[in-house]
């Protein structure tokens, strides 16, 4: 058994690509070897900025000998077929083997030297390497067929045991030599074998293992902060990035002028992180400190003094730029900034951002005035703003910065006190009108990630109400799973209105997500609505809200819709004025104009209805996805959805939760079994559902087969009234009595939205239905008895359907 080492050395590989490249190298190589029947006992791969390396341990010297069998023509097939087969296999007729009248070619392949397989695999892997972006270079690039690599390929080390595996690609020949750190050890190093690769490079200031570099950075940065009496704000993304930029990482602590702390901490952190790839620190009080940790790629002769000085200077210049933006932005009222949104296109089919703001403002007001968002919202009992989540999402500033709110940060402001509806509506509308204004500020232009947050700061600084500032800040929330969900009523109104508008409008112009394509993040928006509504127990009638969002046409949009009509009308006038139209011609055109107007109105209405229906389905899917992750059974959601007409997500979920609890009990499980038995009999007998499950306004019996021959609808209704036309058996009478008791209870409980109560009412039915099936024969010879018993089962089914369509429940 022998080990193989491969190192592909190049000019600096982008940090973000290294981890995947390392995995790809191992995967592609394994696949190449697999073709030859080779498998390594252990596979290790490494990436640094300047090299990808692979070590395959425990390869045999030779591949195993194999015998390959190829099926040929039947005996007695036309000679051309036989000739073709012989040509293909390179055998003669007497070398073929016959089996069951079919000829086979059997070729024994002796084992190949593994080194030979490796020599062929190296160029194959290099040529097929899936870099996200690759390039050509050098003299060879005179042709576009020249090799592509992430950056120019400089060297190949390929050793099987201690022998070089000879290969050449794009003028780079394999060998045993590589180079160490660019500055610490620029000369050639000869590698003996896979065994000494890692240690030889370490001796030349290259740590080949990315995980080890990350550890060094994590530990070094932490210690540097501690030494300064500070604590490091950890950041996984920065760890990877810095490890991808260094072969010999040296974390160094630097400082910046305390005066810059007047700029919001999120801005400082973002500047340091995004532009400079620095970690930041907090002081013992938990506040952002005027310190950063940079990671150099060299053990400097002066201990890093000059490097720190240089980095401090760069950060100072960055921060003074940020402060310039901040101070400049503060001077312009958000309301004045908002005017500029008229010049920003939101989407080519959906007008400008100013148009959007206008719609969101109206919808936010509607959400309050129609009683959807009320004050105080149920979960704001504590009166807190959004609770800080513990999510550690990469790039999520809030998560990465557990610093307490900045003194002037809107999050530090008191919550909105209880307000009247009118005042709440006014605040929501005002917040909505200002919510997008920060998009045209210098700071957000520089750092788009700060949208919302900066608006919140500017609003607070410009004297807006705390609730308005908070709403501007948080109206994009929740951004993805695990993000905070807004709770303050003003924020909730704006956040919901913004997302509903986005969803409704994109659905209206048929820009819906397809497959993995969701360029406008509509799934995230819908999930945001679902989370906001469910976590705050907001009673949002989705259908009405969507209708509201798709119906309100702005004057400018209305003008756009009517524009073709106006043009027609002008043509009529112009032509009539010129005498170009006869009276009848004019009448025709006017009629056509009326028809066109009606057609446009009709098309508009249909588009809106379709968008509403599609969007409701979309929400149902999102809810299922979200609840599945929360452990709610999707069949139970389907069972409640099947009732139709339910567009209040909170009520729907309560029903589902009560149902899930109920079917988990013995009563529930047995009732479900009884229900299924009853439903099967009814289905067999063709007895349609009487009322539920019914789509809102639709006939329950539609599409469910004709009523059974024995039961007319009228008969069924008559049977629903209590009383028997014959002497019932005790279990029959008991079931009837239980239904008499359970039905009104369940109905009342559902009306009171007491779903547990409704389930409890249904639980009464469990024992009687069991007894009924034990002692009563449904299929009685007497048609009256049979009809009455079927009717009883139908009543039982319908009673259960008041809660959910149990037929959808699995198990």
């Amino acid at each position, binding site marked *: 058994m022998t080990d193989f080492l491969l190192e592909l050395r190049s000019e*600096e590989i982008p940090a973000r690509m290294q981890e995947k490249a390392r995995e790809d190298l191992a995967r592609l190589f394994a696949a190449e070897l697999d073709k030859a029947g080779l498998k390594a006992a252990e596979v290790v791969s490494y990436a640094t900025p300047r090299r990808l390396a692979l070590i395959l341990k425990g390869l045999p010297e030779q591949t195993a000998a194999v015998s390959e069998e190829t099926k040929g023509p039947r005996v007695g097939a036309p000679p051309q077929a036989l000739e073709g087969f012989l040509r293909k296999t390179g055998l003669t007729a007497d070398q073929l083997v016959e089996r069951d009248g079919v000829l086979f070619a059997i070729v024994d392949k002796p084992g190949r030297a593994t080194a030979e397989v490796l020599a062929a695999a190296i160029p194959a892997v290099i040529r097929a390497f899936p870099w996200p*972006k*690759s*390039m*050509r270079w050098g003299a060879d690039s005179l042709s576009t067929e020249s090799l592509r690599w992430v950056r120019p390929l400089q060297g190949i080390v390929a050793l099987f045991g201690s022998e070089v595996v000879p290969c050449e690609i794009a003028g780079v020949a394999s060998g045993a030599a590589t180079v160490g750190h660019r500055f610490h050890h620029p000369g050639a190093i000869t590698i003996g074998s896979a065994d000494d690769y890692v240690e030889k490079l370490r001796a030349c200031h290259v740590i080949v293992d990315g995980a080890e570099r990350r550890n060094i950075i994590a530990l070094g940065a932490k210690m540097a902060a501690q030494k300064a009496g500070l604590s490091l704000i950890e950041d996984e993304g920065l760890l990877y990035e810095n490890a991808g930029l260094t072969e010999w990482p040296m974390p160094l602590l630097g400082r910046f002028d305390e005066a810059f702390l007047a700029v919001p901490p999120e801005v400082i952190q973002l500047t340091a992180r995004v532009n400079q790839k620095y970690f930041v620190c907090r002081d013992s009080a938990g506040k952002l400190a005027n310190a950063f940790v*940079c990671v150099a*790629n060299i053990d400097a*002769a002066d201990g890093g003094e000059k*490097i720190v000085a240089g980095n401090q200077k760069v950060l100072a210049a960055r921060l*003074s730029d940020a402060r310039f933006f901040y101070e400049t932005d503060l001077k312009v009222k958000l309301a004045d900034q908002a005017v500029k949104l008229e010049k920003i296109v939101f989407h080519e089919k959906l007008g400008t951002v100013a148009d959007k703001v206008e719609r969101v403002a109206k919808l936010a007001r509607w959400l309050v005035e129609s009683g959807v968002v009320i004050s105080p919202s149920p979960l704001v009992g504590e009166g807190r703003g959004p609770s800080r989540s513990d999510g550690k999402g990469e790039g999520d500033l809030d998560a990465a910065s557990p610093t307490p709110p900045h003194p002037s940060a809107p999050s530090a402001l008191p919550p909105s006190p209880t307000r009247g509806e009118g005042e709440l509506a006014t605040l929501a509308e005002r917040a909505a009108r200002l919510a997008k204004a920060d998009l045209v500020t210098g700071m957000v232009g520089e750092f788009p990630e700060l949208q919302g947050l900066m608006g919140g700061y500017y609003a607070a600084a410009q004297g807006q109400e705390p609730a308005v500032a908070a709403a501007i800040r948080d109206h994009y929330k929740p951004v993805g799973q695990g993000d905070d969900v807004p709770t303050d009523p003003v924020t909730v109104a704006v956040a919901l209105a913004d997302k509903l508008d986005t969803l409704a409008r994109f659905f209206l112009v048929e820009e819906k997500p397809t497959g993995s394509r969701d360029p406008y993040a509509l799934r995230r928006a819908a999930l945001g609505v679902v989370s906001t509504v469910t976590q705050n127990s907001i009673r949002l009638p989705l259908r009405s809200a969507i209708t509201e969002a798709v119906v309100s046409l702005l004057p400018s949009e209305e003008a756009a819709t009517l524009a073709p009509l106006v043009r027609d009308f002008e043509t009529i006038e112009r032509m009539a004025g010129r005498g170009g139209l006869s009276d009848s011609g004019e009448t025709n055109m006017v009629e056509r104009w009326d028809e066109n107007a009606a057609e446009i109105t009709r098309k508009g209405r249909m588009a809106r209805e379709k968008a509403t229906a599609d969007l409701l389905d979309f929400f149902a899917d999102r809810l299922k996805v979200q609840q599945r992750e929360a452990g709610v059974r999707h069949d139970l959601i389907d069972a409640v959805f099947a009732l139709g007409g339910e567009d209040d997500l909170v009520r729907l979920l309560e029903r589902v939760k009560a149902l899930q609890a109920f079917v988990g009990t013995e009563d529930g499980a047995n009732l479900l079994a009884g229900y299924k038995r009853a439903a099967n009999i009814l289905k067999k007998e063709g007895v349609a559902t009487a009322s539920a499950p019914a789509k809102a306004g639709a006939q329950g019996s539609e599409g469910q087969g004709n009523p059974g021959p024995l039961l007319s609808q009228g008969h069924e209704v008559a049977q629903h009234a209590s009383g028997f036309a014959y002497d019932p058996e005790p279990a029959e009478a008991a079931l009837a009595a239980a239904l008499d008791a359970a039905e009104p209870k369940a109905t009342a409980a559902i009306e009171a939205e007491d779903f547990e109560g409704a389930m409890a009412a249904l639980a009464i039915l469990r024992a009687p239905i069991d007894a009924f099936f034990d002692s009563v024969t449904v299929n009685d010879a007497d048609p009256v008895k049979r009809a009455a018993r079927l009717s009883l089962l139908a009543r039982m089914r319908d009673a259960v359907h008041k809660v959910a369509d149990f037929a959808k429940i699995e198990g």
Partner: protein
Amino acid sequence: MGERLTPSAPCAKALPKPYRVTNLSEPLSFQRMILTLHDYWSTRGCLILQPYDMRMGAGTFHPATTLRALGPEPWNAAFVQPCRRPTDGRYGENPNRLQHYYQYQVILKPSPPDLQELYLGSLAAIGIDFTRHDIRFVEDDWESPTLGAWGLGWEVWCDGMEVTQFTYFQQMGGFDCKPVAGELTYGLERLAMYIQNKDSVYDLAFNDAGVTYGDVFLENEREMSTWNFEIADTDALFDLFRKAAAECERSLEARLPIPAYEQAIEASHIFNLLNARGVISVAERQAYIGRVRDLAKGACTAWIEKKSPEWEAAYPGWAA
């Protein structure tokens, strides 16, 4: 530019390692830094050209970069190019931002195998000591929508400061670069501030006799910022844009790619001025950029069409 330049000699090998750091008792002045770079690249086979005599946003617009990046012939050149970025003007009040500054451009076609080493040698030549400074190559892919060009490369960091844009051109004017050229763009003021340890660009020593960068350019920044942002006649600029575009097209009809390209440069700068005056709406912006791109692409296309017979004859098998 009108004469066809003979292909320059291929670049010499990189300096033997470790890098030969210029040991200086005094840091280089701005002008000595330029002279040192000229000397360095001149001895490595580059033609030392002079700035193009037109207003442009980046050294890449210089025809010695753009047009010469096309075609199969070797081309090695270095030059200083003044750059104008009207929106970056700060009336001389920001120590780091200027509406007029200098780039040092090196273009090497085909890109030599030791381009990184050659580049590092130039940093050593102007006094950067790699045992005390942290040099890193940080991914930064370059794209110029107005030139229909892109390339892969890095921004080179020295102690966290971007000092050079390092690019392997892959396409120019919408055409594949065959062969690929390596382009180095040094930010001269930044490098000088770094070498001289100055916090303000205006405090840079321009020469060794006490003249500062501010003595030369501060008033220029103040006046040009005012003109760019407040005074420039927008009606006249719109008119100039139209005229440059029209002249570009007329030149293309006359099969004169170089004058056409000059008009594309002109249109690009006029667009930047209009932008600084804030009279181009977001919606119109894309249309203007598209117009400039079409002009530049038209010039590149015409250049390729005109030169192809010659190139194909000299490089059998080569085709645009």
